[in-house]
Structures are given as C-alpha cells and as structure tokens.
C-alpha cells in the first residue's frame, strides 16, 4: 500500500457521508466537465472534434473534455469520490451497475430528451438500464466475431459462413484450425486476442460467448457456485484452452492484417484496419457454436451523468443529446466501425444493414438477451448487470489467465466461484440501495 493510496483512501472515507449534491465544475456559467477513456486514436480524435463542435454550436454550455488512459479508466472512476467526478462521464457497459451502487450516476429520464431515449437500439437500451431506470446512453454497441482472410480460406478449401445459422460447430472450427495452420504463413491459424490480456476485461468479453453457447453462464441470482464452475463451462473452456497450439501470440499486433494468420477473433473496432489491409479478402463470420447456437458479447462504452450534474441537468442533457444525434453517432462509428446506437443512424449506416459488410453484427444485436436467461435463439448476450461485476470479472479473468497457461479448468473455476460468492456475501449480495 503506497502512502498516496492510503491518504486518498482516507479522503474517500471522510467523504463517505452519503452527500450527493456536490459541485464538480458545474457553475452557473454552464461549463461542464467531461471524462472519457482514451481509446483508439481515431475514436479519441472523433470525440475531441465532437466536443469542439458542440462548444461552437451554441453559447450556453462549454464542455471540457479530459481523456484518461483506457487501462486505468475504470479504476480512476472507482477511486474518485462522487463529488469530485465530472458532470458527464463515460463508462464501460458492465461497470455501470457498480457505479449506480456507488451513487455515482443519476437516472437520465429527466436529463436526456425523450426523443433521444426512444431512438436507441435494443442493445444500447439494455446496457443502459439498471433497476428499471436509465443510467447510461450509448452512441454505439459492439459486435464480436470471427474474421477470416478469404485468400487463405480458399487455399485450404474452406467455405466461410456468413449468418448466425450457418456458424461452424466447435468441432468444425477445430478441424479448420488444423487445416488453416497449414496455410497460414506464421504456422498459426488464429489470433485469439492473447496480446490484449485474458486477465483483463477482454478475457471475460471474448470467452463468455463460448460458455453461453455451451449452455453455461457466469452467475444466476447472485450465485456463482454451481453456475460459473458448471460442467458446461469447464468443457467449453477446456476446448478454448486447447486452441493454444493454433493461436498466434501476435506480439507484433498486426498478425491478421499482415496475412500471417487466417483467422482472428475480435470486435468491430478492428474493421477499419482490417478492411484497409485485406480489402475484398476480409470476411466476417459468426463465432463457433458449442451446441446452443452461436453467441457474441455486446455492451460497450456509454455515457452517464453524475450527481455533480444535478445542479444543472440541462447542460449535461444538452451535451448528451448532442452526442446522440445521428450526425455525432455517424462521426464516431466512422472512427470505430461500431454498430450505430440509434435506430435512425443504424438505418442510414454504410456498414450495417442488408448486404452491408458488417450486417452480421446488427443481426446479432437484433436478437439480444441478458446473461441470466440465454436462449438458443438469442445471439448477442450482455455481461452480468450487477454492482459486484468488478469482482466477477477480476476472479474470472484470473482463472482464464491460469487456464490459458495450462492450469486445471475445474479447479480454477471452483476457486473463482468461491471468491465471487464470498465477496457477494460480504456485501449482502449488493442488494442495499
């Protein structure tokens, strides 16, 4: 424990008076502070120019943007007391419930306009809702898929599936991994995103589709025991770990766009890079089906307002409404190729829609469900919406890292389940509001 941490904790504790009428920077002059994560360069540039555009578009409100590195973003919000937060902040979808529990977010029904709220696509609406209230609004949602290099697939004589119904079974996928390893220049068939770190949020995001597709899930009714360490999950993750021999560690960061591997398992945000590198050879496929239909994660970065905005909800609302116009959404999704978060922007999209390159992601989101009631029909599944999510993802991520390193899957999932349940028990299941 460093000294600085100790002190800041003392400060946090002294601020534990439950007062929520702070005054961040929201003076009467209508200046608001905005915090966001520094994502990919193109995303951050797009956001900065949107903020500039907002400031020059009207006289009343000035938004000041602060970018925080992505790796530290969530812990920064976590360790900042509610009254020191900016009026408007970004958050990753699965962390939303935990910030609501910490009283760092306010309901948006009276902040954002009704038109904006009604225009959201289903996935964004779901990611922003907790305890029947809207706490976050997203400019976009994400898709996760299997991308292929058509030239290498053809060389191996493999046909790429294009719709969720045609998804490879996991057995077919494993057969193809062996075949594609033969034709991939690196000798490895797939980049599974190892370089992003399986112990981080990426690990949870990228492997949960496997367990949902196998009929498992992370938690049910606030319990992980018997759910997280179920036989379905053990089998699915054993298979996932067995792909290591075909997986490129991708130390260069460009294995797939360089044509070194035939496949990569990643999200829509890589589309601009991939399509520039591979052009017509880029194909998007659903993730393999473990028996209960192909699944994919969803839920991405979204925006909320903090108690600091309560003094001047109009200013925060004006900014959020501006971010959620079709023009703003269009500028952002041009940078990250995400699924536009409003119905009208989705209809105009160049990438999403019938016969467009990323149609699959939009179709996946059209059949979305929560992680507690995964059906065979739904494709896009949200990570658990619970204030205890930080512990869930931390314990599960540690287990994934160990499993990838060759540890026993059942043992790792057992201890992750115990860690999660113990944390929930200490906090009364995060029920007290």
């Amino acid at each position, binding site marked *: *424990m460093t*000294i600085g*941490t*100790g*002190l800041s*904790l*003392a400060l*946090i*504790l002294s*601020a*534990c*008076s*439950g007062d*929520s009428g702070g005054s961040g920077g929201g003076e009467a002059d209508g200046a608001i502070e905005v915090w966001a994560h520094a994502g990919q360069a193109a995303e951050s540039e797009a956001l900065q120019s949107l903020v500039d555009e907002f400031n020059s578009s009207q006289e009343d409100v000035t938004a000041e943007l602060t970018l925080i590195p992505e*790796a530290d973003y969530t*812990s920064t*919000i*976590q*360790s*900042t*007391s*509610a009254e020191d937060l900016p009026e408007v902040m970004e958050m990753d979808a699965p962390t939303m419930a*935990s*910030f609501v*529990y*910490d*009283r*760092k977010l306010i309901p948006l029904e009276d902040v954002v306009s009704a038109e904006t709220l009604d225009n959201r696509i289903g996935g964004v609406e779901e990611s922003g809702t907790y305890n029947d209230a809207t706490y976050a609004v997203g400019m976009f949602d994400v898709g996760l898929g299997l991308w292929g290099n058509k030239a290498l697939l053809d060389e191996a004589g493999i046909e790429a599936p294009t719709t969720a119904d045609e998804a490879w079974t996991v057995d077919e996928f494993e057969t193809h991994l062996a075949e594609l390893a033969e034709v991939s220049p*690196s*000798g*490895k068939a797939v980049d599974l995103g*190892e*370089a*992003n*770190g*399986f*112990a*981080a949020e990426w690990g949870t995001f990228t492997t949960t589709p496997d367990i949902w597709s196998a009929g498992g899930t992370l938690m049910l009714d606030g319990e992980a025991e018997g759910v997280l360490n179920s036989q379905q999950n053990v089998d699915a993750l054993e298979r996932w770990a067995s792909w290591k021999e075909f997986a*490129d*560690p991708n*130390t*260069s960061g460009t294995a797939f766009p360089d044509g070194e591997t035939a496949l990569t398992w990643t999200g829509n945000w890589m589309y601009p890079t991939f399509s520039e590198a591979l052009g017509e050879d880029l194909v998007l496929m659903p993730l393999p089906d473990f028996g209960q239909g192909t699944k994919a994660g969803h839920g991405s970065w979204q925006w909320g307002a903090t108690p600091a905005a309560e003094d001047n909800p109009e200013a925060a609302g004006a900014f959020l409404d501006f971010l959620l116009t079709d023009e703003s959404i269009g500028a952002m999704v041009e940078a990250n190729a995400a699924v536009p978060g409003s119905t009208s922007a989705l209809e105009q999209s160049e990438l999403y829609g019938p016969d467009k390159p990323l149609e699959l992601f939009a179709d996946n989101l059209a059949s979305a469900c929560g992680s507690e009631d995964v059906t065979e029909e739904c494709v896009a599944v949200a990570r658990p919406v619970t204030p205890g999510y*930080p*512990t869930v993802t*931390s*314990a599960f991520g*540690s287990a994934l*890292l*160990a499993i*990838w*390193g*060759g*540890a026993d899957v059942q043992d790792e999932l057992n201890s992750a389940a*115990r*860690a999660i349940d*113990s*944390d929930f028990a*200490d*906090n009364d299941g995060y029920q*007290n509001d």
Partner: protein
Amino acid sequence: MAAPAVSLLLLFVAVPFVASIGFSLYNVRLGDPRDPSFMGLTQYVRILTDPDVSGQFLDALLHNLIFAAVVVPVQTALALALALLVKKNIPGIGIFRSLYFLPVVFPIALVAIIWRLILARGDEGLLNSALTFFSGGTFGSQDWLGSELTALASVIVLSIWQGCGFQMVILLAALQQVPAELYEAAELDRANGWQRFVHVTLPGVRTTLVFVALYTTILSLRVFDQIYVLAKSGGGLNEDATRTVMYEAVTAAFDENNIGRASAISVVFFLIVVVLSLIQRRVTTEKEG
C-alpha cells in the same frame, strides 16, 4: 530541529498505517458511499486460514522471499563485477558506464513490455528464435512467461537487468574511494589480483555492499509493477507462479474494490517486514562489530 521530519513521518507513515489497521477491521469498499460494516478480525482470519485467500497470500510471500533470496546476492555480485569492469580508466569507458546504467532510467513497466517481446511464446519471441537458430532447431519454443517453471525466473532476470546499473553506480563511487596506496602496498607485498580483491577491495567497499544489499532487499519486497504489467496486459505471465504480496494487496484494492482485505494484507506484511528488518539488522551489526 527534528520537528519537520517527525511531522512528515507522522503524516505520511504513521497516519496511513494506523488508518489501514482501522480499514482492515471493516468491510471498506473502494468508491462505496455506504458506511463500512464492522468485520472484526475476519480479514486476518481469511488471510491466515481460508484455503483460497490464505493459499494465495502464502504463495505470494514465498515468491517474495525467493525473489529476495535470488536477487539480493546475484544483483549485488553482478553490480560489483560491472563496477570493477567500468572502473578502468581507458578511453570511451563513459560509454560503457552509460550503457550499463541505461536500463535504470526506464520505468520498470516499460522494461516489462520490452522483455515481453524478448520472452514471447512461439517462434516470434526474440529469445525463442535465437535459441532455435543457435541450436539448429533442436531446442523448441518455450513459453517463458506462461510456464510455472520459468515464470518467476523470467521476472527475476528482467528485474536484475533493470536494477543492476543503479547498484553499479553506487559501488563504483565506493571503489573510487579506496585509497590507491593500499593497492600499491599490496603489490609490493606481491599479492596477486584475487588477493588484492579479497584483502583490499572488499574491505574497502564493505559498508557500501551492506547498504546495497539492504536496499535491494527492500526493493525485492516491493516487487509489483513488472508482475502486474506482464500478467494483466497480455504478457501471459503465470499469475499463480509469480504473485507477490504487493500484487495481492493492489489487486484486492483496485481490481476487486476490497480495501478491507488489502489493508489487512498490508498490515500483516508490515509485521513480517519489521521482523525481517530486525533479523537483518542484527546480522549486519554483528558483522560490522
């Protein structure tokens, strides 16, 4: 006279320490505005008896001790060897001194990223491709960071690489303080190089060596950055084979928001470090005496 120092010590050491004893008795959550609930000694009981928590804590403690037991003697010896090497007054020696010192100015997190590329699993890793090349392919690719056999060793190697230059500079300063007359006298007595090293050099830098060893011990107990970076950001480091006490405390506090457990870990660790320091002090003062 001592008032400023004492007040700073109180403010920055005593107050946080007493606060963390307080935190460790409550269920304190990072960022939670609710009043913390009293848990008594539950966190301590878990650290010492709960199979999961205690298993990880004891593993972490063991890794710290292994790290210290290897790094302190090896790094000190290596630093002394390097200092003797760059002590010579030949043209261009400044370049070598700078080169050996260079890693010290890199933040350890950056060093971890560099070594991630060197130790990467698969044929792309620099170390693997070099070994494959020199062994003519008989030596296959190893997963240096992922295997439980080599994970801690890998961390130790990169830590020594980063830290050695600093000790070298301190020892170099000490070596230059050893009076030249002593070496001349030793040469008159027909002492060979080894004897000169044992009877003149070592006694001359003994105090500095003790200081360097103490300092390295303290650093060894604080190991955190390189392990966190390599485990959490895609290095594929085997967490179970390398976790340290600091890593346990930081991940409990900031990944799981469990300030109570993190504080309890810190308090237990503080007591262990105090005991170790007392032992070390006794041993070194006996040597000095």
